[in-house]
């Protein structure tokens, strides 16, 4: 089926998220929609899927104009979507998830689960998916859940399938498998829209590429275009984001982690017997696909995980079993991976957020009383030092942009006397300028002699910052390698393969 979007314009208040976008996807082609985070790709697809109503423009399927009042209409017209955040109900089985919304019933109104199971098996067999229709979705690994999403779309006879950032949660291996599935679907005549910001994937699988920037189509490209050409189109200027940093001068080990294991409430082992150290004056990057224990590892270091076995020592003093308060007081600075959830109180002012983890003693508190005058001076200083753009220190941080929010977190953490600095996904969702700023501050912290841990799922960030790289897979350390390890090796390690040379560093 041929899909055409003509002059789509979508506004949110004063903001134009999609500005007069034209896009044609031919039958049986894989069409990549390339753009930075926030460029408007997902908005466009939500318009296509009937989740948003566009102010202007029209959607045509095989040259017939469509009017979608909701996702139901879009699905009936043959459009399917594999969402970035899976739209699956965790406590339902695969079959129940697949049948939801177009249930077949038997006499008496009871659900025809047998028919749904058969449908799941049939599609699953056709593409070699190996999905058990009676498994509960919450018990399935991420990669399998994504297949359930695909089955869900195909069970409604989708002719146009939209994949919204499908590889964000996959290992390189799983990504390759997904590419194969896409090619299979294409061979079966399905048109595919592949939304991504990863250049390599686009070049591997797409037939045509449309680049979107700031809500506008800025160009088309063939898959033969070079990385540089695509990147320049995507970002709008020549990009050079390498970080200037001197070689590390590592000193004695500061943080020593021995045989650390983290278990969740259900008995799942999230971090499995890991041992490593971080030396004074070096950046250790922890790489890995999202969800392989990195988050839980940092939480265990911070005292945020209740069930921890093993040892953590900082400068010779044990940190295991200590409360977050004690860990912070021991001189650990922490930038959490989800800053709006864990790093900031959105309704609090910039000033209040700057004292968030120091609400116990001087200089911010004197005999139970907040020292508001001191706080105001402190906040004004930090706002200037970290270049936080706002209406003033009384602005609620919830109103700041992501980059400025992250600067507030950094300002707070780096203004303490640190013995260890942990930054988790420090640049996720930030604009180019803020990324540069954050990277510079991290390197400066290292150069000041503080041991630094950076957790990142982005290989490019890992490569830019790390002095040593530790790769995690399924809760274990695959290996610890030097900072200049080739990305092909890192990619294999992220899929769980131990590097040939062994853990050299």
């Amino acid at each position, binding site marked *: 089926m041929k899909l055409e979007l003509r002059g789509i314009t979508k506004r949110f208040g004063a903001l134009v998220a999609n500005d007069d976008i034209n896009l044609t996807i031919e039958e049986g082609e894989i069409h990549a929609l390339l753009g930075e985070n926030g460029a408007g790709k997902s908005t466009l697809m939500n318009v296509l*899927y009937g*989740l948003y109503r566009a102010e202007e423009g029209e959607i045509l399927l095989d040259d017939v104009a469509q009017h979608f009042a*909701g*996702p*139901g*209409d879009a*699905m*009936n017209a043959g459009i399917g*979507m594999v*969402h970035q955040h*899976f*739209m*699956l*109900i*965790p*406590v*339902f089985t695969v079959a*129940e998830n697949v*049948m*939801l*919304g*177009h*249930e077949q*019933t038997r006499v008496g*109104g*009871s*659900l025809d689960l047998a028919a749904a199971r058969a449908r799941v098996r049939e599609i699953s067999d056709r593409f070699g998916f190996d999905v058990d229709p009676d498994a509960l979705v919450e*018990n399935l*690994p991420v990669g399998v859940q994504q297949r359930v999403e695909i089955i*869900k779309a195909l069970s409604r006879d989708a002719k146009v399938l939209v994949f919204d950032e499908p590889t964000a949660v996959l290992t390189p291996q799983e990504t390759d498998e997904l590419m194969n599935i896409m090619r299979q679907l294409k061979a079966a005549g399905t048109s595919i829209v592949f939304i991504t910001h990863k250049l390599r994937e686009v070049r591997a699988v797409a037939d045509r590429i449309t680049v979107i920037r700031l809500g506008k189509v800025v160009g088309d490209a063939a898959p033969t275009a070079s990385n540089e050409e695509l990147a320049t189109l995507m970002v709008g200027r020549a990009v050079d984001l390498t970080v200037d940093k001197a070689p590390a001068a590592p000193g004695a080990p500061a943080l020593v982690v021995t045989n650390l*294991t983290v*278990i969740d*409430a*259900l*008995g*799942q*082992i*999230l971090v*499995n*017997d890991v041992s490593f150290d971080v030396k004074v004056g070096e950046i250790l990057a922890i790489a890995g696909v999202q969800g392989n224990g990195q988050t839980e590892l940092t939480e265990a270091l911070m005292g945020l995980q209740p*069930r921890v*076995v093993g040892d953590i020592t900082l400068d010779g003093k044990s940190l295991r079993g200590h409360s977050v308060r004690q860990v912070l007081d021991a001189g650990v600075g922490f930038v959490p991976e989800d800053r709006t959830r864990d790093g900031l109180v959105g309704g609090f002012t910039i000033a209040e957020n700057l004292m968030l983890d120091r609400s116990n003693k001087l200089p911010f508190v004197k005999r139970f009383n907040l020292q508001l005058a001191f706080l105001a001076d402190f906040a004004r200083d930090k706002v200037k030092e970290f270049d936080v753009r706002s209406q003033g220190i009384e602005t609620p941080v919830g109103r700041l942009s992501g980059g400025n929010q992250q600067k507030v977190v950094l300002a707070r953490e780096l203004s303490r006397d640190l013995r260890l600095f942990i930054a988790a996904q420090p640049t996720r969702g930030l604009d180019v300028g803020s990324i540069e700023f954050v990277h510079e501050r991290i390197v400066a912290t290292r150069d000041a002699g503080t041991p630094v841990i950076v957790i990142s799922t982005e290989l490019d960030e890992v490569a830019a910052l790390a002095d040593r790289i530790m790769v995690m897979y*399924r*809760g274990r350390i695959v290996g610890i390698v030097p900072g200049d390890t080739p990305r092909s090796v890192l990619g294999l390690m992220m899929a*769980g393969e131990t590097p040939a040379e062994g853990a050299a560093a």
Partner: protein
Amino acid sequence: MSTIAPVNQPTQPTGPEEGPATTVIKSWKVPIILGVFTVLGFLLMVVFGRTGTSTMVLSTSSDLIQLPDVLLPTLPTGIVISILLAGITALSAWMVQTHRKVPLWLISVFAVLLLIGFLTWASADERIPVPGLLFGSLSLAVPLIFGALGGVISERVGVVNVAIEGQLLAGAFTSAIVASVTQQPLLGLLAAMVAGVLVSFVLAAFSIKYFVDQVIVGVVLNVLVTGLTGFLFSEVLAPNAATLNQPPKFERINIPLLSEIPIIGPVFFRQTLIVYIMYIAVAAVYYGIFHTKWGLRLRAVGEHPQAADTVGINVTGTRFWNVSLAGAVAGLGGAYFTLGSVGAFGKEMTAGAGFIALAAVIFGRWDPIRATLAALLFGFASNLQNVLSIIGSPVPSEFMLMLPYLVTIFAVAGLVGQSRGPAASGKPYIKS
């Protein structure tokens, strides 16, 4: 209370394509709680045991088949039951030690034994009319069950229903007026459903359309309905009691054959129409929620509204109509007060039944059958208090009345098993 088994040897080997590595966390909660109750039971039934004989009357005079009374020597029965309780406790401890789950039926057996022991102890040298005790329990449980079903439907679709009390009260009020004016209890029943729906409309409008916190709307609605019915009662019903507040009550209907089964018959099958409707409602809600398209969509909206939206389910509409349905069901429970038991409306006559129903929803883990059982248990507790106060109870009646609330506190504190509510319950769905 939890211990972690050695973690370096996961119980399952973990290959690259299998699920995540796991280890077993032993929970000693169940044995500890059973142990506490065993000790309490032993203290009550043996250490402070009472001598004499307890008589359990199993038949009513009108039964076709007359069962003989059961005579239990009070102290020996207490000793036997204490031993059995200790045995079950030990068994559960062994199960936990060997990494097994303590099954629910074992806990149920424990509870029933404890109950029999308590009854025997309390009725030393007295007669306990078992059918009467159970019949009264069911009667007291009827509005709780309707309320709990309303709560289950509403919470399963994602709207916390603290307004059950208001729905019951509104149902009681309107059914009294309509049934009095028309002299038709069935029309009263219908009116009660409409009243429940109206209360639900407000709950739905404010929580779904205006995103007001659902608990706040619920609490305020209870006050509003209390005020409205109180005002109208004083202004309208009280001055015209003869015409407006004398509804005809439902007659008892004996179901042929079934009503002659010993013990069960008199309890379950010599009831009024509302009670029979309640049986059907429990079955229908259970079947509907777990086996029909309606239920699948309802649960989907309550668990993950966005996912439901993306497959073309109208989240707002589903929530709105199901909250309304919940109101209708709870309204029926209100009608039971005026048309089934009391026979006239009185100010604040529901007296907190809505909150016990809410407790039953949670104690029953958002499952219609379990919630019904919980409501029956609460009905039993309060009727046991009635019966014991007649025979001269050794336990102050206030403590018996306190029981449902204490049990619920234990339940939400996780002492009676983990329970997980619908994931999106209480959260407004704001479409961006």
